[in-house]
């Protein structure tokens, strides 16, 4: 999967947890899930679990802290998908 394809799918994963749909449509590598998309921190684990199900991967705690910035999310997902 290309980074662009992962980004498109990631938008669908994030969508239920943000009301800022306009900002979601224009997210890029620098977008911060909490500061920019106003996602409550209590939903970060939901996003990780949903991403695991979406890409059939396992994201362990060592990398979970990188899942706050869109670019880092794509890095983690890309790495895990390529490991399969």
């Amino acid at each position, binding site marked *: 999967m290309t980074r662009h394809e992962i980004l498109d799918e990631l938008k669908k994963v994030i969508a239920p947890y943000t*009301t*800022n749909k306009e900002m979601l449509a224009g997210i890029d590598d620098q977008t911060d899930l909490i*500061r920019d998309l*106003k996602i*409550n*921190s*209590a939903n*970060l*684990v*939901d996003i*990780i*679990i949903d991403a*695991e199900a979406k890409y059939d991967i396992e994201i362990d*705690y*060592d990398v*979970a*802290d*990188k899942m*706050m910035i869109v670019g880092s999310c794509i890095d983690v997902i890309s790495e895990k998908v390529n490991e399969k």
Partner: protein
Amino acid sequence: MISTGNDIVSLNAINITRTNDPKFYSKILSTPESKLYNKQVTATIPFENFVWLLWSIKESAYKYLQRLTPDLLFTPVKFEVIQFQTPNAYQPIGFDANQLTGVGFEGLSAFKAVITFGADTLYACSIIYNELICTIVHTNEDFSNTHWGIKFIEDEEYSNQSSAVREFLIENLQKISGFDKVAFSKDQHNIPVIITGNSKTFPVSLSHHEHFIAYSFQYSSI
């Protein structure tokens, strides 16, 4: 100035089935922490509330430590709750008041915990109502100068919650401190502070989730 870290979880917003899934809670609790859910705790609160209680303790500790280390990232399992104490004769009750403020936790059914992150050790006090979990973390066990507030708001829009919690904090801080001029700000690391009339900064901690907002700060008039 010594600060606090706080967090609030709206229990109406949590997914009970998902929280009880090991795939989910293993992202929050370490194996030793899961074992803290012993017979005594089982009789006090359901497992999903225990998971979110520990989440709120960890998030509060993270918010406290982020002041000292602005680049700190939040990985819940790296924050470890090493001691956990349930209050005596805890009875779950509803949050019937529109808002509640307090100083310390004397006379309240508070859950107490000790949490570590690396070389840092912090102390937590949490109160649980049927609708919410509210936690405050501090550097020592003395919460006697810890001021806190919890409020129900109708509007659950994120930006409006942010404004509401700032107003709630400023209103109560002015009542307590007598500061006539205070302004909310964020420092260069996006951490909330109050600027008083004499341009001194005053660290505060703010939190909101769904219909609940909460603040905490340390203040002593002496």
